[in-house]
């Protein structure tokens, strides 16, 4: 007899907190579109040094020469001529929370950012539209010599350090949206951890895009010097509008010899957002890079954190989950280049698609001639909750050395009736059994996150498993 296949109702992520729109009260914004004039205007507005002004113009030239990706989800709904590249909120950067204007403060209060700062973070940066409105780092962390500031301040106060690293890892020639970023970037965070310093509690930057039809192009530059360690958390959200918003941020991470960096992201952009973000890490000898990534929001995402393992024994770990619901096409994954002996990488990805959502896991593993003794393991699991949805797995492995060990595994499927049956035979209701299986599916990711983020993620994919059958 054919087993009766029941369905569990899994609700969408509850976005009510994120969707509250604030009145747009911008002090300054550029006109829509992208021209040399607009880029120049941003540069003047931000009082860029001459080299940065020149850099922006060069990047715009490259942007105009490059085409949009021919692979990946459609970008047809994104018209750069309709995007406002720069929106300055009506406040200056504040170092005290009390001085942040009431409306902006309320937004971040709702998102729980100041509370998290008090309880579990060593420092916080908050960006509202194109500018960072609040940045603070705990005294004891500052005393260790750790620099944690907004990119604009870093450009003034640590100009040489910024100049040496800025868009050197992700160059504007990388792809069209990296070039766009180079031309109009604004805001973001800069972190420098001196040699041997271990920052025990995480730093966090939160990016909020409030203005409709705007783009956010924050730049995050982190240097973890020899033997140092850091956990950096990035959170992003925006209210939903009827027009497209664009996020083309750039994250450059330099993990020096023997250092360790964990970079965690919970992305919860609204479903009108095109999230075309570029993240890259350069990992030196004996250093470790860990990516933890949760992608829940956006209409379209192109997100593939890349690690270049350039020093002997460098390590990379990636743990990611993607949840795509109605109207979402989330193309996420990971890239790694093994460019030194005995480098190792481990990638574990999970995805859940429901209600017409589309998840794609896309990866690239490259092992060069120098990667003697390198090891790589990729594991990828996808769960389809209905047949309106899609789930694709597109990995590539390019190996140019015989002395390597590489393994790739992928599985795709639905919740198995046998597993449900087993759990029900142990006394669980069918609804409870399904809830347990989905929670268990996401568990390996949840346990990598700091507690309050794991809670947020669980809230996001708690999935309100009501067990409604049929």
């Amino acid at each position, binding site marked *: 007899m054919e087993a009766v296949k029941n369905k569990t109702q899994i609700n969408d992520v509850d976005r009510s907190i994120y969707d509250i729109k604030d009145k747009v009260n911008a002090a300054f914004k550029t006109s829509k579109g992208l021209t040399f004039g607009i880029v120049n205007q941003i540069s003047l507005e931000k009082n860029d040094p001459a080299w940065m002004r020149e850099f922006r113009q060069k990047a715009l030239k490259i942007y105009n020469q490059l085409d949009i990706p*021919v*692979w990946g989800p459609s970008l047809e709904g994104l018209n750069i001529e309709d995007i406002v590249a720069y929106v300055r909120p009506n406040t200056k950067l504040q170092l005290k929370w009390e001085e942040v204007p009431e409306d902006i403060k309320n937004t971040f209060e709702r998102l729980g950012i100041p509370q998290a700062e008090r309880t579990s973070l060593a420092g916080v940066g908050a960006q509202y539209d194109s500018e960072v409105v609040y940045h603070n780092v705990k005294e004891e962390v500052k005393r260790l010599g750790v620099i944690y500031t907004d990119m604009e301040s870093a450009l003034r106060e640590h100009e040489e350090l910024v100049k040496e690293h800025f868009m050197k890892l992700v160059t504007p020639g990388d792809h069209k949206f990296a070039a766009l970023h180079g031309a109009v970037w604004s805001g973001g965070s800069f972190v420098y951890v001196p040699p041997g310093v271990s920052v025990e509690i995480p730093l966090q930057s939160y990016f909020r895009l409030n203005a409709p039809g705007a783009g956010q192009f924050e730049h995050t530059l982190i240097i973890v010097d020899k033997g140092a360690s850091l956990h950096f958390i990035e959170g992003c959200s925006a209210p939903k509008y009827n027009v497209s918003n664009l996020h083309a941020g750039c994250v450059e991470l330099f993990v020096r010899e023997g250092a360790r960096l964990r970079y965690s992201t919970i992305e919860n952009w609204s479903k009108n957002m095109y999230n075309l973000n570029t993240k890259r890490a350069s990992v030196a000898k004996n250093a470790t890079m860990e990516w933890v990534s949760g992608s829940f929001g956006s209409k379209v995402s192109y997100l593939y954190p890349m690690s270049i393992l350039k020093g002997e024994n460098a390590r990379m770990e990636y743990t990611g989950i993607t949840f795509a619901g109605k109207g979402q096409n989330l193309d996420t994954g990971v890239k790694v280049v093994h460019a030194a002996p005995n480098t190792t990488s481990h990638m574990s990805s999970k995805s859940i698609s429901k209600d017409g959502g589309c998840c794609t896991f896309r990866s690239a593993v490259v092992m060069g001639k120098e990667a003697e003794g390198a090891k790589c393991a990729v594991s990828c699991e996808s769960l389809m909750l209905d047949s309106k949805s899609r789930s694709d797995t597109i990995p590539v492995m390019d*190996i140019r050395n015989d002395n390597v060990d590489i393994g*790739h595994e992928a599985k795709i499927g639905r919740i198995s009736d046998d597993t449900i049956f087993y759990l029900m035979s142990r006394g669980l209701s069918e609804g409870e059994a399904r809830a347990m299986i989905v929670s268990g599916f996401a568990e390996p990711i949840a346990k990598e996150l700091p507690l309050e983020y794991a809670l947020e993620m669980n809230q996001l994919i708690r999935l309100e498993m009501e067990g409604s059958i049929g």
Partner: protein
Amino acid sequence: MLLELKEVNKLPVKTFRWLGANKLNINEVIPDIKPFKRVELTGEGVKDIKVTYHNNKESENMPPTGMGDEAAAFICCHKNREMTVTVPRGKKIIEPLFLSYRLDQENPALAEELFLLAEEDSEVTLVITYEGEAGTPLFHGGLIYLMADKNATIHLIQVQLLPDGGIHFSNIGAECKECSKVNITQCELGSSHTVSGIMADLRGNKSELTVDTIYFGDKERSLDFNYVINHYGKNSKSDMKVNGALLNSSRKIFRGTIDFKKGASGSEGAEGEYTLLFDKNIKNVSVPLILCGEEDVSGKHAANSGKIDENKLFYMMSRGLSEGEAKKLMLEAWFHPAVNNIPSEALREQVFQYVKERLNHVESL
């Protein structure tokens, strides 16, 4: 003449351009394609089938092929051998049919089109071998359509043992109706450039497809594969196994796609690709895709690359074999499961002999 094909072995969905894995561009000088000597089907079962030597099939009624339309059009345009084999309804042909092509100075280029139709409830096994005279530039291009009607079974075994300098491509399109089975075994062991594409549409409910491939790359050899299995029918099943070895400066790209179309509920697809690596200068690219538009399916893929297991090597050496001998023995064992699909003792022996011969010339062993 120039063989120029701009877009072959295309991935069903594109990925990062910098990896160069989305498609293959062929630009090779091949011997002129002139009339090729007549080659007949042999084997006990020939009397039970219908063979014609002119295919008048409308290409739009043919299933799509793994290498794509451009490669199919090239053969349609230049074919110098063509054949339609029909296995009548209800005929189960136990003894295999053989088709053996030998390319030489007189017949250096073969562009073959083969259409194999297994009617309802029939079964057939077809073994095609490609061999050639060493020291002569040779070309083989094949376009093979496999159509399995309801409850029919087709076993296709291709053994490619062309000498160095040969250029070989095999372009297959298969269609499986209800409860039918198509099993394809490819032994891609020879020629300097090998390109192989299979596209199979599992249209019928409970239809099945298996692919069992072995390949062997040494010297400057290049191999480019594109296998695409489309699951349309409910409870359809597919299984791809690809085992290969790369030595010297050989390079290989394997694209394997399982595509579960919406409505293919209850289907299962599995793909396993294992590559043994022997030298520093090899290039090994694997692209195992699973595309899924149906919830109630189970898809799995696994890909592994690496050196021969050192423990096994050590064990065999402790039994008195030299390192080279042990490696050769393990390589033969690696190829065994696919070679065992060949339904002829003599041909199996010939394949092993061919591999041995080739291994004798490998300095690193």
